[in-house]
C-alpha cells in the first residue's frame, strides 16, 4: 500500500475558487441549454441538448464528485455503469425499431376490424 497516497482521494481538498467556478460554469451551461432548447436547430435539438448535458455531467463527476483526484478504480465503476446503460439502450431501441412496422400494421388492422364490427 506504499503508493496508495498517490491515488487515494483522502485528504485532497478542493479550493473554494474551483468549487465556485464549477458552480458558475454549470449555471452558464444550464442557461445555454435553455437558450438552444428554444431555438429550432433543424433536427439537432436532441443531440445538442444531450451534448450539453453530458458536458455538465462530466464536470459534476470530475470535480464535485472528486473523480479527477480519486482512485482510478472508482472512475472505472462509473464508466462501467454508463457502458451498460448504453448497451441496454442500444439493444432495446434497435429491437423495438425492428418490429415497429409490424406493430403499427397490427394496430391499424385491429382498429379497422373493431369499427367494422
Amino acid at each position, binding site marked *: 500500500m506504499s503508493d*496508495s497516497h498517490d491515488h487515494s482521494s483522502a485528504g485532497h481538498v478542493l479550493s473554494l475558487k474551483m468549487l465556485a467556478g464549477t458552480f458558475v460554469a454549470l449555471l452558464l451551461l444550464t442557461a445555454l441549454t435553455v437558450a438552444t432548447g428554444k431555438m429550432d436547430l433543424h433536427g439537432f435539438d436532441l443531440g445538442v441538448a444531450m451534448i450539453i448535458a453530458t458536458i455538465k455531467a462530466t464536470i459534476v463527476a470530475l470535480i464535485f464528485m472528486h473523480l479527477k483526484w480519486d482512485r482510478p478504480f472508482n472512475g472505472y465503476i462509473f464508466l462501467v455503469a454508463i457502458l451498460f446503460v448504453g448497451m441496454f439502450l442500444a439493444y432495446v431501441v434497435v429491437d423495438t425499431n425492428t418490429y415497429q412496422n409490424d406493430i403499427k400494421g397490427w394496430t391499424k388492422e385491429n382498429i379497422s376490424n373493431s369499427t367494422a364490427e
Partner: protein
Amino acid sequence: MSSDHHDSKLAHHFDDLEQQFDANKFGMWVFLLTEILFFSGLFVAYATYRSNHPDVFQYASQFLDTNLGAVNTAVLLLSSFTAAWAVRAVQLGQKNLVTTLLGITVLCACGFMAIKYMEYSHKYHEGLLWGNAEHSIFKENTADVASSVREHGHHWGDVKDLDPEFRRQTGIFFGIYFCLTGLHGIHVLLGIILMLWLMRRNMRGDFSPEKYDAVDCGALYWHLVDLIWIFLFPLLYLIS
C-alpha cells in the same frame, strides 16, 4: 498497529483510516452504479417511446413549464455546490461551516420539492396525468374523461379534438414523466433525510479531518441525484 490502543474511528478489519476511507468510498461507488442502472430502465422506456412517437413527445412537452424546470435545475446545482463545499469544510475541520452548508443543501432540496409540488398539483388539477388515472384527460374515449377536468381544465378544448390514439399515447408520455420525476423526487426526499442525519452527526462531533467518510459519501449520493436531473431536464422540458 497495536490493538491495545485501537482507534475508535477505525473498524477492526482495516489496517488504517486511509484503507477504511477507500473501502467505504469504493462501496459507495458500487451503490451509485446500481442507482444508475436502476434509473436506466426508465430512461430506456423514455428513449424507446420517444423514438417511436416523436410527435407525441413534441406535443406533450408544451404542457411542462420550462421556467420552473430551469429554476429547479439551478436550485439543485446550488445544493450540489454547497454539498461539495461541505466536504471541503469537513476536511479543514470547520465544524460550524459544515452544519451551515448541509443546512443550505437541505433548504435547496426542500425548495426543489416545493416547486415539484406546484408542478404536480397543477397537472393534477388540469388532468395532465397518465391515461388510466381517474382525473386524466388523455383517455382514448372522451366519454371516460371526468366531468370536473372537462369543465374546469384549461386544456380540454384542445385535447378533445386530438386523434383518440394520439391522445392515449400522450397519456403514456405523462406516465413516463411521472415515473421519472417521481423516482427522482423520492431520491431528493431521501437526500433530505440523509443530509439532516449528517448535520446531527456533525453537531455531535462525529467528524474530523481524519474521519469524514459519511459526509463524503453523502455528498456523492447528492451529486448523483443532481446528475440524473441534469439529463431529465432537457429530455422532458426542452423538446422543441
